[in-house]
């Protein structure tokens, strides 16, 4: 297959060896080359992915999602909720109104959780950064695992019948029916919205990308090969759970974590362990839990964290065996 990113490698080589005049086959050259190539690739894929997802998003609003999923039960609706979670916007300050809006329209708690689990897990920025650094195959595995995790996690929450652990006031709120004129948007306006999103998200994450790539680049250039295989390899069964526990507090820097993880894989970290770590970073965030505390009692939050943690650890082991 022709490497469509070959021009970026060419630019990285040109800059490293000719413009900066760094001798090839040195640690410094390896680091600098890695940094230039990764930064270019991540930013290009970020812009494309965010644009595409934001464009689709102008058609799939939470209001419509509510109508589609209201009052439906069954595994297929868990799947639909998870898939909608991939494309619908979900920033932590919207999680409470979204949650109440969903529950109020009669979407079963389990289906709502399928959405809540997948939505932060598979977001366009993380997908773009993963694709840029680790490659398309692992990215697709990540997306599919994210959806499966959402379906499974939500299904278990549904089975456990945890409706009584939702704060009582949630059921009393009446959601009004205001239709924001979104239907009549022209292609140009949708593109403008998507472009604004690209600017906004890139404007927010670029610094983490640069920091992450730089740290990853230093590690890539200077750390000895196989160092991680020695300590966190497939035969160390504790590596996956440790990676998951370490991932939870790192939420805000997920864009910086991805390039670091790339170089960790290069030095022998098994892909399953790396995926489990990244899933923990994105799916289980402390700030998110604190916000959800407003609408969920601690039993339900505990069950949510436990179900997601166990399934992420399982996914990690699974891909360590398969890949």
């Amino acid at each position: 297959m022709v490497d469509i990113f070959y021009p970026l490698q060419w630019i990285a080589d040109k800059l490293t060896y000719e413009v900066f005049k760094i001798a090839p086959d040195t640690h410094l050259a390896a680091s600098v080359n890695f940094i230039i190539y990764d930064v270019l690739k991540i930013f290009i894929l970020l812009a494309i992915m965010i644009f595409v997802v934001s464009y689709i998003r102008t058609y799939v609003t939470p209001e419509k999602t509510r109508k589609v999923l209201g009052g439906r039960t069954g595994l297929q609706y868990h799947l639909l909720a998870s898939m909608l979670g991939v494309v619908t916007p979900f920033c932590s300050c919207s999680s409470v109104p979204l949650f109440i809006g969903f529950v109020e329209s009669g979407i079963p708690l389990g289906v709502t959780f399928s959405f809540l689990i997948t939505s932060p897990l598979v977001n366009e920025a993380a997908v773009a950064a993963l694709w840029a650094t680790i490659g398309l195959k692992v990215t697709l595995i990540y997306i599919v695992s994210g959806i499966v995790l959402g379906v499974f996690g939500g299904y278990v929450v549904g089975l456990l019948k945890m409706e009584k652990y939702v704060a009582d006031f949630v059921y009393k709120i009446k959601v009004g029916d205001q239709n924001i004129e979104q239907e009549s948007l022209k292609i140009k306006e949708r593109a403008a919205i998507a472009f604004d999103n690209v600017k906004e998200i890139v404007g927010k994450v670029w610094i983490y990308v640069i920091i992450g790539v730089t740290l990853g680049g230093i590690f890539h250039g200077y750390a000895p090969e196989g160092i991680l295989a020695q300590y966190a390899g497939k035969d160390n069964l504790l590596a996956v759970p440790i990676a998951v526990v370490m991932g939870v507090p790192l939420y805000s820097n997920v864009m910086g974590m991805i390039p670091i993880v790339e170089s960790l894989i290069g030095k022998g970290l098994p892909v399953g362990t790396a995926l489990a770590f990244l899933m923990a970073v994105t799916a289980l965030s402390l700030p998110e839990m604190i916000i959800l505390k407003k609408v969920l009692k601690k039993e339900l939050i505990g069950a949510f964290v436990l179900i997601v943690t166990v399934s992420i650890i399982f996914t990690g082991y699974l891909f360590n065996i398969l890949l």
Partner: protein
Amino acid sequence: MKIEILGTGCPKCKKTKEIIEKVLKQTGVEAEVIKVEDVEKILNYGVMVTPAVAIDGEVKVAGKVPDEKDIRKWVTQ
């Protein structure tokens, strides 16, 4: 005119308020600007993604910070 900014208090909601106040100052339009942080009131408007702006009870935008051009159109109509 009553302008309500619906949002639980994230940075984007603050930004929305700033832009609206700026446009009001520029255009000289008199309006009452209220910040609505109560989730129940926000949901009464059918809004699930914040920030959102309602003018005289009608939701104009939800889920993003509106740009100055749009706000100018809404307040001068």
